[in-house]
């Protein structure tokens, strides 16, 4: 089969200086701007009130006792178990004991939860507004320009990705349009930002900044239920101690060495 002659398109070399370069620079500068805007807009972590702190930490303490019970001797574990299960079941550590048994409050009305949502909203806005602006800027001025030829062959599937905005059916997918260059920058500048701003920056568009840390005590979780479950967990533990037969283990360990 005869080799198809390679497509050649006569491009103005000025395209590089007037389209490729400006788009890249604008993308980088917006990323930096966005990073600092996010830093400025970040609200400081909210103060936790004492009862709420007590509720969280008591539960954590219960979990610690449950998972590290083996460091205790049998009598001291028994004493702790009795104390903690009684306290957990009676709701002694709850933030507001009189609201026991009621369904959790609507997260929309909880000011604490609203704060978190506001933060998320601010982040999203910081992402969306500049992107919309740049997109429309590129679409207005540079739509339809073919600005780049990739130095390696790629399959036809990439056509829609690389030649967005250029509706030419027969063109080799190696040719790249300005709007595609924009998308490439949008997703590919993470490493540039890592280099410029340090590794935990907010510059890049990468939406998957990792899932939010699962909030154990977030809105909608009934603390009383957690305490009841923890009390049950404590009650069913079959106690053994790491101190049982430790002398034998020690002597054998020394001998085998």
């Amino acid at each position, binding site marked *: 089969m005869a080799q198809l002659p390679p497509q050649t398109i006569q491009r103005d070399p000025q395209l590089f200086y007037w389209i490729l370069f400006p788009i890249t620079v604008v993308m980088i500068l917006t990323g930096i701007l966005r990073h600092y805007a996010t830093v400025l807009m970040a609200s400081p972590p909210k103060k936790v009130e004492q009862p709420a702190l007590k509720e969280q930490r008591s539960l954590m303490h219960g979990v610690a006792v449950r998972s590290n019970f083996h460091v205790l001797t049998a009598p001291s574990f028994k004493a702790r178990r009795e104390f903690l299960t009684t306290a957990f079941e009676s709701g002694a550590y709850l933030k507001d004991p009189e609201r026991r048994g009621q369904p959790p409050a609507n997260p929309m009305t909880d000011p604490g939860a609203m704060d978190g949502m506001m933060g998320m909203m601010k982040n999203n806005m910081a992402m969306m507004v500049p992107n919309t602006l740049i997109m429309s800027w590129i679409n207005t001025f540079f739509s339809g320009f073919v600005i780049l030829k990739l130095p390696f062959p790629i399959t036809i599937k990439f056509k829609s990705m690389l030649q967005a905005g250029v509706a030419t059916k027969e063109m080799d997918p190696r040719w790249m349009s300005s709007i595609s260059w924009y998308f490439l920058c949008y997703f590919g500048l993470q490493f540039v930002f890592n280099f410029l701003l340090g590794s935990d920056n907010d510059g890049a568009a990468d939406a998957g900044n990792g899932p939010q840390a699962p909030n154990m005590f977030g809105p909608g979780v009934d603390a009383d239920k957690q305490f009841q479950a923890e009390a049950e967990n404590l009650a069913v533990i079959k106690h053994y101690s790491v101190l049982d037969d430790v002398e034998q283990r020690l*002597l054998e360990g020394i001998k085998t060495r």
Partner: protein
Amino acid sequence: MTSSLLRPPGHLSPATALQLSQQAPIIIKNSPGAVTASALSSLFSAPETPELWTIYENLLLSCLRTGDEESAHLCLGRLVNRFGDDNERVMALIGLMKEADATDDATLEVVLKEYEALLQENPTNIPIVKRRVALLRSIGRISDAVTALIGLLDFSPTDSEAWSELSDIYFSQGLYSQAIFALEEVLVLQPNAWNIYARIGELLLMSVKSGSGDQNDSAKQLGEALKRFCRSIELCDDYLRGYYGLKLTTTQLLNDPPKPSKQAESDGLAPPNLSTLQKLDGLATEKLGEITRRFTAGEKGWQGFDEAEIAAAKELLEKSSSTTVR
């Protein structure tokens, strides 16, 4: 050298602390005074690292310890510049500085009042709560310190530092069982802390020796002490205090065996039989001998033990060998 600046300076020997604080002026001069917030210069200057601020904090503590107040003030000034004086940790450091600058009890009382005012505003300011406890303890109001500490542990029972401080206060008052309880809480939070295991063993041993518990209990307490020391050694092969305690406990159990008690049996804390005891005694003696010998010979990899602990171990070995000869 910088590595020892990155760790909390509490464990440093006086000599090392002095050495560090003598280098303080140089370190302060070489480190950047303030990290600029401007975007342009931060693009070109070296990035700010968390270590820098840890170094300042530890340097501050070392300087206060050795009386170099001038450098301490410089360190504090930089921390305040960076984090502002409403940061909880910086607030505690400022308080510490005021305590160090105080010359008489009246000034300390003023500092105490300030702490209380701060806590009125924000009762969950844990660094300040801890400073207040330390200050109360140092001016001799022990029971107030205990009350404050228990208040802290009530809303934050996962604070192992506070539990161990509570244990130490109880121990200083001779309340062994309370001290042991507090240390058990530390273990629940830090299940592999071998020094805490050994410390519980020491407290149990001391409570037997002081005769505070009833006599029937001593079998159980000695049995538990023995097990605690064994666990400590199991976790850390060369833990001198663990071997030392083990040796003391086995000697006690061999020379003066306590009456076997039903309760110790049922709790699984009865001391082991004679041959095991002798084996453990032999093991402890051998290891203590090895550690002291190699430390004194200056062998590589056997340094870093505390001089005083080595001396005590030597003394113990000499005493025990003289009794066996007799």
